Structures are given as structure tokens and as C-alpha cells.
């Protein structure tokens, strides 16, 4: 393969941005989760997601041949202009409470499993390798979220909190499946096996079984092609860049 081409770069950046921001969101829970085991679990999961993001950015930064260079990875991972990001709104919205954090963790990871499957046989070898590594970690993420939901969903008080979070987050979560720029080309040259939205029904079915919701009630937010940022994104980006923006010449 000689270079990724603009379209495939865009396709990979959308995935990398989602992984980065999902990890970013999980980092907020260290020390303030309901009990210490959860502090530890969320921070392990966050590290895994940030690691997936780093692997994807490294492929893009090296134009298909992953680089091991923090500065080049960070040039992509901290793009200053919100309009240049390709993240889904699900990972941009701030989780108001732990119910939202847990439900998002489940919704995202259910979709993430399918998303890695789309590139498990990728013609881009480093991407297929990243998919194999990611799945080894993701099965634990899913087991973690399911273990908690198994106990918390059937109880009236906690079940209601989780259903409220689900109602807030589901429209944004469906946005994970919005076609992204470059996907057509990525599928055409075997980087991905099929467009991601071909897996939407399977994911919706899992949501229905997990939360006992009627899928017809799932109203996706209007598709934006991932070009519009959630209102919570701006403050998050400022926070992420706060230290690096103190001095553009500094290396930390």
C-alpha cells in the first residue's frame, strides 16, 4: 500500500477521535466513582481506549506505517480547530453523573466491538493488528459494564436513573453509525469490510435486549456527518489543550 490517501485518513481519524474522547471522558472518573474498584476499572478502560486512539493516530501520522513519535501523534490527537475533529457527539457530551457514564460505556463498547470487526480483516495490516489487540481488551470492558447493569437495572431506583441516562444518550449513540467521510473509499479498497451502518440493526437489537426498550422509540439525532460538535466539546478541547497552549514551543 502506498500511502493512505485523504479519504482513508479521514475514515481512520473519525475512529481515532472517538477512541480518544471516550478515553478522555473515562479519565474523569478516577477517584470519584462509586467505590475504589470502579475507580480502578474506569481508569484501566480509559487507558485501553487512549491506547487504541494512539495506535490509530500512529497509523495516520505514518501514512499507513505506524510511527512511534509522540509529537507526531499529538499533532493529530490535539487538533486545535473543533471543525477539524470527526468525533461522534456521544463521546463529546459531558456525563452528568455515573449513570450516564456507565450507560455510555456500555453503548459505546457495544458499537466498538462491531466497529473493530469491520476492520479485523483490513487490507491495512497495522489496522488489522490493532483490531485483534483491541478485541482482547474489549471483552473485559463489555463484561465490566454488563456485570454492573445486571445488578443495577432490575432495581427500581437505579434502573430509573439508568433508563433516564439511556433516553438522553441513545439519540447521540446512534450517531456513531453515521457514515463518515472516506468510508466509501475505505470499503472500496478493503480497509474496512462494509459501511458501519450495516451493523446498526445488530447494535439496536443488543440495546433492546439489554435495556428492554422499543427500538422504534430510538430517534437518532439528525445526521451531521460528524461535522458539528456537541456544545460540550468546546470546553473539553480547551481543557485538553490547556497546558500545551501555555507555550507552543514547549515539550512536556
Amino acid at each position, binding site marked *: 500500500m502506498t500511502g493512505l490517501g485523504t479519504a482513508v485518513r479521514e475514515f481512520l481519524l473519525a475512529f481515532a477521535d472517538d477512541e*480518544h474522547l471516550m*478515553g*478522555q471522558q473515562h*479519565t*474523569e472518573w*478516577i*477517584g*470519584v*466513582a*462509586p*467505590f*475504589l*474498584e*470502579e*475507580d*480502578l476499572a474506569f*481508569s*484501566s478502560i*480509559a*487507558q485501553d481506549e*487512549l*491506547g487504541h*486512539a*494512539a495506535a490509530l*493516530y500512529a497509523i495516520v501520522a505514518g501514512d499507513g506505517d505506524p510511527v512511534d513519535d*509522540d509529537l507526531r*501523534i*499529538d499533532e493529530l*490527537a*490535539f487538533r486545535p480547530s473543533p471543525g477539524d475533529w470527526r468525533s461522534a457527539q456521544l463521546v463529546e457530551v459531558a456525563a452528568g*453523573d*455515573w449513570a450516564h457514564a456507565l450507560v455510555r460505556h456500555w453503548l459505546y463498547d457495544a458499537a466498538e466491538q462491531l466497529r473493530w470487526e469491520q476492520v479485523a480483516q483490513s487490507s491495512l495490516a497495522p489496522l488489522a493488528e490493532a483490531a485483534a489487540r483491541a478485541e482482547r481488551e474489549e471483552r473485559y470492558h463489555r463484561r465490566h459494564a454488563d*456485570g*454492573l447493569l*445486571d*445488578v*443495577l437495572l432490575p*432495581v427500581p*431506583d*437505579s434502573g430509573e*436513573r439508568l433508563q433516564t441516562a439511556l433516553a438522553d444518550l441513545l439519540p447521540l449513540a446512534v450517531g456513531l453509525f453515521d457514515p463518515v467521510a472516506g468510508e466509501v473509499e475505505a470499503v472500496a479498497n478493503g480497509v474496512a469490510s462494509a459501511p458501519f451502518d450495516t451493523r446498526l440493526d445488530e447494535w439496536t437489537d443488543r440495546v433492546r435486549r439489554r435495556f428492554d426498550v422499543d427500538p422504534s422509540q430510538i430517534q437518532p439525532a439528525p445526521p451531521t456527518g460528524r461535522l458539528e460538535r456537541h456544545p460540550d466539546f468546546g470546553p*473539553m478541547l480547551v*481543557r*485538553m489543550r*490547556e*497546558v*500545551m497552549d*501555555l*507555550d507552543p*514551543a*514547549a*515539550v*512536556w
Partner: protein
Amino acid sequence: MGRTWTSMDDFEAFLDGGGIVEVDDDMPDAYRQAVFAFIEMHANSELMGGLTERDWIPRTPGLRHKMAVLAKTQDEIGHAHLLYMVGADMDIKTRREIIEDLFAGRSKFHNVFHYQAKTWGDQVAISFLVDAAALASQQAVFKNCSYGPYRRILKRIISEEGFHMRMGEERMLRIADGTEVQRTMFQQSLDDWWWPSLQLFGPDSKPGDVLLRWHIKSERNEVLRARWVQKFVPLLMSYGFSVPDPGLTHDPATDSWTSGPIDWEPLKRTMAMRGPDSARRIADAAANWADTHWVRRVLDNAPARAAGVAA
């Protein structure tokens, strides 16, 4: 049931002979209380230290850097987790009671975590100065610790803290070789964190200190403190930073550094929960704890198959 001793003299002779106490031994109550209080403060400090650092994790300048600092803070919370279990096994308080006493402001944690990390420089200074001071204290406990469960946990904690200190050192070096903005920021952090870090060792050990007599501590506070000063003063100066101690003296004959008079009032204030950031720290932690009560309540009442995930 483990071992029993006929008298305190008998017990102390056992300790002096290098004896290791285990959780099921019939240890004297005064020893149990003293060891528990020590472990409780260590555990609380690991947790509050993690909370001090967490504010800056989402702002870490770099993606893989962010993974590293998150792993570091995760280690600190992990230490708290291990220590709370060791403490709870002593049958004085449950783990829940220890944490709730902390968040109610009823128990102690190290002075340094009564301050706020206000800049990224503070974050680096904590993993450099504070972690080094904590590590020195822990190593001195590990060396001769008579309480077996604590000693075994300390072995792991110390190996992880060694990594943290090296990580702090590496980050400090990058700042030292960095821009004027970085160096100015870090000097400010040194000015703010030098004295609290030094005070972390505590005032000179008293002659009758039971922690020394019962082989919990193996070295006197003033010895550990002097060694830390001796290590960090020349190191910081070699990178062109200054140490905010006007009374600092250098003995050219022995090439040794001695700190000036130490004001212990700031330390006393933190121990009375009146440190610069004590009230906010405790209030925030208590509010977060209250906000997630609904989760614990359900898990506490969950069937046994789910008990593995409950606190």
C-alpha cells in the same frame, strides 16, 4: 487463632528479635491501634493524593503522556485499595467506615494533600518531590516493619513508587531543559511545594516513639528528612532552580546541605483540617461519595453472585 504473648515485655522481646506479627495473632491492643492508625493514614493519603492529581489528568499535554499519568494515579488509588483491606482486616473499622470517616473530616491524611495542585508544574512537583519523600518514608517502614500484612503490601507499593519517582524526574528534566515559560512555572511549584514536602517527614521523632519501639518505623523522622534535603538541594540547583529556604546552609568539608529553621505551624494546621485546601478537598470528596450512594446501596443488597463487584 494465632500466637499469644503473656505480657507487653514478652511481646516487645518478640518484636526486638525480628518477630513478624500476623493478623490472627493476639497482639496487644495498643499495638493494634497504633498499627491501624498508621495504615489508615497511609491509605487515606494514597487516596487523597490520587484526588489531588486527578484534576490535571484530563489536561495532560500529550496522548501517551496522558496514559502514563493515568496509570500512575491508578497505582495510587490501587495502593489505597490494598491498604484499606489490610486496615479493615484488623477489625477496628470496616473499609466503608474508614472511607466515610475520611470524607467526614474525622481522620487524617498527609499534609501535602491539604494543598491544591494549581498548575501542571505542581503536578510534576508532586510526582518528583512528594513521591520521593513518601517513598523514603515507606522504604524506612518496609525495612523493619513488624506487621506482616503491611510489610508485604509495602513491597509492592515501593516498587511502583520507584517508577513514579523516575517518571517525575524525567518530566522534571524535560521542563528543566525547556522554555522560559516551563522553567518559571516549575520554579513557582518548587516555591509552593518545597516546604510541605519537607514537612511531610514530620517533626523530630520523640524519644519514646512507640512506632520506633514496635518496629513500625525503622528510622527517625529527622534522619529521613535530612537525607531528602541532601539529595534534592544539589539536584535542583544543578538544573538552575532555587530552593526557597533562606536558612539553607552548605558545609564544604562534607559537601552536605542542611535546611534552615522549620516552621511547623503549617503542618499542625493541616493535621487539624485547617490546611489551605482542606475544607474544599473534603467537601468535594464527600459530595462525590454522596452522589454515588445509589450504586453502593443497590450493590450492598445484591445477591451473592454480584458480591464480587461490591465495595
